């Protein structure tokens, strides 16, 4: 049985209010709290280390997999390895995510290592939300590592969201694309208080006609610190675009490091990075509609992180 805290965390990270439909695996405080496989999607525990294998049969369409993780004990630290094997011609949605509630004084940490092996001609949507809460002095720490190998003609969309409550995070994402493959990443991040967030992407465009669009929008408040690195390597006829757009507030610090490497004359790569505070005329415009300054700021941030 899940506790009330665990249920609330599940709602925050996966919009789950009841047992999800389709295949799922719920990990709560280091233990399996529920699992279901379907005819096309098989979830099994790894024999040698913590984590699961998710195998999706070729041609599986319009199915979803939920694999949320919640931690509600202080001092809990775990590293979990999840591997996805997605057959050719699949069209699936994968919802991951981690919620930590830490009301104690010891740090709690979840490091998820995800590896995706995606076949040919697939469409995969991956959603990962991170959330932390709790009143204790113990930190809520998440260090996700994601590797994505995208087969010929497949298209992958990744939505990475961390809006609240995670004190320390180091995210590292590596993607490698075969011919005609496409990757779209939307990262949204907000840090506050003394939080620190690092995010690093390396995308290798190996096959001809592959393309990638890696976009990060972030808001850094209070004394938080953000570091964003995005590296796109073009090794064939390909197109790559990376964009980092940050709103900086209070006494925060933001470092944005876009990086491009072209190893082929037909690689077309673009990067954009912008850091700035909320424009005064944006606040004034919303105030002329009757909003207070604080309400205007909230609307601007909510829109920006949408």
């Amino acid at each position, binding site marked *: 049985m899940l506790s009330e805290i665990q249920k609330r965390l599940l709602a925050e990270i996966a919009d789950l209010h009841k047992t999800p439909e389709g295949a799922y695996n719920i990990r709560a405080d280091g233990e399996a709290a529920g699992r279901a496989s379907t005819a096309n999607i098989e979830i099994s525990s790894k024999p040698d280390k913590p984590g699961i294998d998710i195998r999706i049969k070729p041609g599986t369409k319009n199915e979803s997999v939920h694999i949320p993780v919640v931690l509600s004990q202080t001092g809990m630290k775990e590293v979990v390895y999840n591997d996805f094997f997605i057959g050719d011609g699949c069209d699936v949605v994968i919802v991951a995510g981690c919620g930590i509630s830490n009301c104690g004084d010891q740090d709690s940490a979840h490091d998820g290592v995800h590896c995706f092996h995606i076949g040919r001609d697939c469409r995969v949507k991956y959603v990962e939300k991170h959330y932390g809460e709790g009143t204790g002095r113990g930190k809520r720490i998440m260090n996700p590592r994601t590797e994505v190998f995208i087969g010929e003609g497949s298209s992958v969309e990744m939505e990475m969201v961390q809006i609240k409550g995670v004190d320390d995070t180091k995210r590292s994402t590596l993607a490698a694309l075969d011919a005609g493959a496409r990757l779209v990443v939307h990262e949204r991040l907000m840090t506050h208080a003394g939080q620190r967030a690092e995010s690093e992407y390396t995308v290798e465009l190996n096959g001809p006609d592959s393309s990638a669009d890696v976009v990060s*929008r972030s808001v850094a408040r209070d004394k938080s610190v953000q570091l964003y690195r995005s590296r796109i390597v073009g090794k064939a006829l390909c197109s790559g675009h990376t964009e980092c*757009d940050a709103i900086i507030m209070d006494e925060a610090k933001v470092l944005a490091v876009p990086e491009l490497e072209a190893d082929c004359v037909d690689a077309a790569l673009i990067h954009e990075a912008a850091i700035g505070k909320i*424009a005064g*005329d*944006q606040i*004034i*415009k*919303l*105030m*002329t*509609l*009757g*909003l*207070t*300054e604080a309400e205007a700021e909230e*609307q*601007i941030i*909510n*829109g*920006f*992180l*949408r």
Partner: protein
Amino acid sequence: MLELKNVTFDVEEADSAREIIRGVSFTVPDSKFVVITGPNGGGKSTLARLIMGIEKPSSGQILLDGQDITALGVTERARLGISFALQQPVRFKGIHVVDLLRLAAGKTLSVSEACEYLSAVGLCARDYIDREVNASLSGGEMKRIEIATVLARGTTLSVFDEPEAGIDLWSFQSLIQVFENMQKRSHASILVISHQERILNIADTIILLADGKVQAQGRKDELLPELLKSTVPVTCSRILEGGVSHAQ
């Protein structure tokens, strides 16, 4: 009704103060359409910003329906019933047109209600409602959306700073129709800053502002012929340029 009483506005420069607005007084009565015109740099936009509370006067008083609002900020004035269409509309990443209209209306608008405001400014509503108010919209589209937000607010006083600037294809007749429909609402009064003869032509009252002062004010039928006869050469040359003014 809006009243300005002897309003001045100075800006500090190196070692002196420069007067931008110099003792301006006028009234915008209920249900009236008042146009402020005059040469570039004459203080028109500053006056609009003083009325909205974006700038505070150095001296003088501003009253709305008899209440002294001189010390009030932008939010309070907006809530008391002043709307403002900026000369340069502001863009927002991630905020959709429908969000802006909902914020303007101060309530949850149905999609069809929101669409009505867009149709009124000549935009095909379905194409715009879910667009982001960002750099993907042209200057003319932004300008119309700005006017639509004022319509959605439905306040008793609406101030437009050069609403015609940048509106290319949308006919002037439509813009004028927007103003006429607004006036049909009981007591709605409109204050427009414009160089455009066709907008001056539908005014109840025209105020000529130059060098920070009201140089002349009067009924349209009295003042407009005078303006067009080049009694004030600088201003008239601007007005008579006709067409769409992109200046300032």
